[in-house]
């Protein structure tokens, strides 16, 4: 039962093979037994989960079940969950029990989903290894000496380890796709504005986007059906119709035009990753797609632009954590300034403080034009690269990451080395386009991810291509040996 997909579990619930309570209890037992090793959850909510499962079973008995009713999932601890601690991986919010639900949490509740708990993450979603979490790093189920990636590392590790069939994630620079690649699962970052950001604790508001993390593309389609849609409570949400993403999964890929950017196949990439990605692309050719070499000439500027835009927005967003209305407050402040400085100094971890300081510096008097404005101009150049490329091809493909999962502690000494791991993922957040990572092989026994990038609102096409690839291959069905 624990290696099944959402689609398979939905079938089992529909035919009465098992109840949601039985299913939920199975996952809770599994979490209990295995999460000491993986540390993929920050908070497990067994009582709430079983109550939701019982309600889902009653709803089914009454004939009102829909596609998601009774299915267990986990939420990244960046999404506000009413009555449940929402820590964002930080000491700052260790005591924060959210008084309200994020819009997507509300959507899942209304669909009758069961929430098993809240998954581990890099503090305030700032990291690529899950090592900046206040609760200690989550570990990669394929090799527990390795990181699961980040920032949605707990979501990825919990799915790969069979502790939940699916989880929500958020992606500001690769935080869904990179851990999905490193843990051998499927992860989709939707178009900016497709999924509501309301109640998702803000890191860099012009880049943040929530999305599904699952075993298969079909499951991601089921999740996105629940998550996507306009939300008046999110000022950057886009009011566009939401298709049923499961309906186009079986469309033919005949005539699909794939673009391979030369910048995504450089010598800096682990050669085993390049081989697996090239094999995957041959699989798409066998499915009827055609391949063309393209160029995204400003790729090398994505990391520099990102490390101004994201910290600048973070320094503004995180100014709300001041020890006054919620969150951590230091002991015995002598005056107001002392309270602000010590609450923030003690409540935030090192990487968060670094990014707040980079952002504060970039936005400080006299530096705005040289840094923030410049980065926003570069951002447009990067977007134009993608717009031009996607006028000639349907989907851009390449590796999700330059290397497979690395060892814990390997890249913590120098933050810039860590930043380089996101080279292929973060340009997409700058451009606002959707991208998906699917498992496409192994390098030294560790999973490799294939990234597919589409035009704005091309989620249907990406999920369709990913699903067809998964019908033809079995990388996504492989699970780490216990």
């Amino acid at each position: 039962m624990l290696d099944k997909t959402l689609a398979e579990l939905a079938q089992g619930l529909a035919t009465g093979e098992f109840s949601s309570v039985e299913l939920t209890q199975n996952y809770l037992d599994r979490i209990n037994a295995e999460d000491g090793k993986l540390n993929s959850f920050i908070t497990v909510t067994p009582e709430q989960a079983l109550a939701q499962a019982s309600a889902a079973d009653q709803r089914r008995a009454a004939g009102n079940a829909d596609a998601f009713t009774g299915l267990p999932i986990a939420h990244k601890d960046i999404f506000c969950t009413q009555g449940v601690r929402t820590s964002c991986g930080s000491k700052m919010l260790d005591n924060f029990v959210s008084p309200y639900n994020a819009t997507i949490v509300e959507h899942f509740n209304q669909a009758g989903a069961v929430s098993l708990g809240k998954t581990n993450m890099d503090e305030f979603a700032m990291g690529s290894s899950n090592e900046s979490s206040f609760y200690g790093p989550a570990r990669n189920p394929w090799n527990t000496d390795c990181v699961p990636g980040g920032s949605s590392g707990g979501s990825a590790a919990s799915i790969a380890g069979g502790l939940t069939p699916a989880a929500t994630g958020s992606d500001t620079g690769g935080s869904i796709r990179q851990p999905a690649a490193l843990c051998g699962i499927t992860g989709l970052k939707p178009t900016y504005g497709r999924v509501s950001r309301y109640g998702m604790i803000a890191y860099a508001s012009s880049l943040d986007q929530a999305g599904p993390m699952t075993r298969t593309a079909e499951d991601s389609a089921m999740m996105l059906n629940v998550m996507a849609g306009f939300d008046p409570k999110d000022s950057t949400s886009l009011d566009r119709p939401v298709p049923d993403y499961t309906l186009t999964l079986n469309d033919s890929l005949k005539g699909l035009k794939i673009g391979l950017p030369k910048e995504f196949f450089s010598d800096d990439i682990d050669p085993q990753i390049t081989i697996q990605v090239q094999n995957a692309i041959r699989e798409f050719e066998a499915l009827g797609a055609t391949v063309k070499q393209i160029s995204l000439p400003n790729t090398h500027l994505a990391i520099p632009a990102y490390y101004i835009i994201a910290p600048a927005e973070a320094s503004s967003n995180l100014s709300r954590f001041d020890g006054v209305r919620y969150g951590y407050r230091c002991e015995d402040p002598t005056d107001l300034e002392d309270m602000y400085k010590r609450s923030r100094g003690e409540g935030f971890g090192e990487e968060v403080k670094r990014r707040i300081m980079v952002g504060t510096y970039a936005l400080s008097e006299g530096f705005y034009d040289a840094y923030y404005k410049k980065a926003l101009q570069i951002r447009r150049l990067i977007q134009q690269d993608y717009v031009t490329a996607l006028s000639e091809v349907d989907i851009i493909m390449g590796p999700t990451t330059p290397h497979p999962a690395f060892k814990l502690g390997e890249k913590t000494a120098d933050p810039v080395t860590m930043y380089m791991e996101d080279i292929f993922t973060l340009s997409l957040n700058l451009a606002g386009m959707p991208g998906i990572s699917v498992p496409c092989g192994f390098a030294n026994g560790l999973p490799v991810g294939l990234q597919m990038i589409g035009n704005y609102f091309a989620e249907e096409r990406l999920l369709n291509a990913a699903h067809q690839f998964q019908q033809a291959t079995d990388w996504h069905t492989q699970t780490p040996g216990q």
Partner: protein
Amino acid sequence: MSLDRTDVEKIAHLARLNIAEQDIQEYADNLSSILDLVDQMQAVDTQDITPMAHPMDAIQRLRLDEVTEADQRDRLQTVAPSVEAGLFQVPKVIE
């Protein structure tokens, strides 16, 4: 771009962050290497490029100024560090 200890102290003050004395040099080194990384941008001519704030150049939506939420002060203050008589308490600001 290289930052020294004084720069870090100034930035930390602007950001209202208390940084331990013994950590300042490490922050200075790390921030300097991040700024070296982003300095690659300066080599690009962006003279006539319009800065991009939203991928679809969407503008801020406006709504009518209507009351849509009921007062939930008590509930929202349950997570506050210190509250008295419905007010958030902070250290004395005015003597």
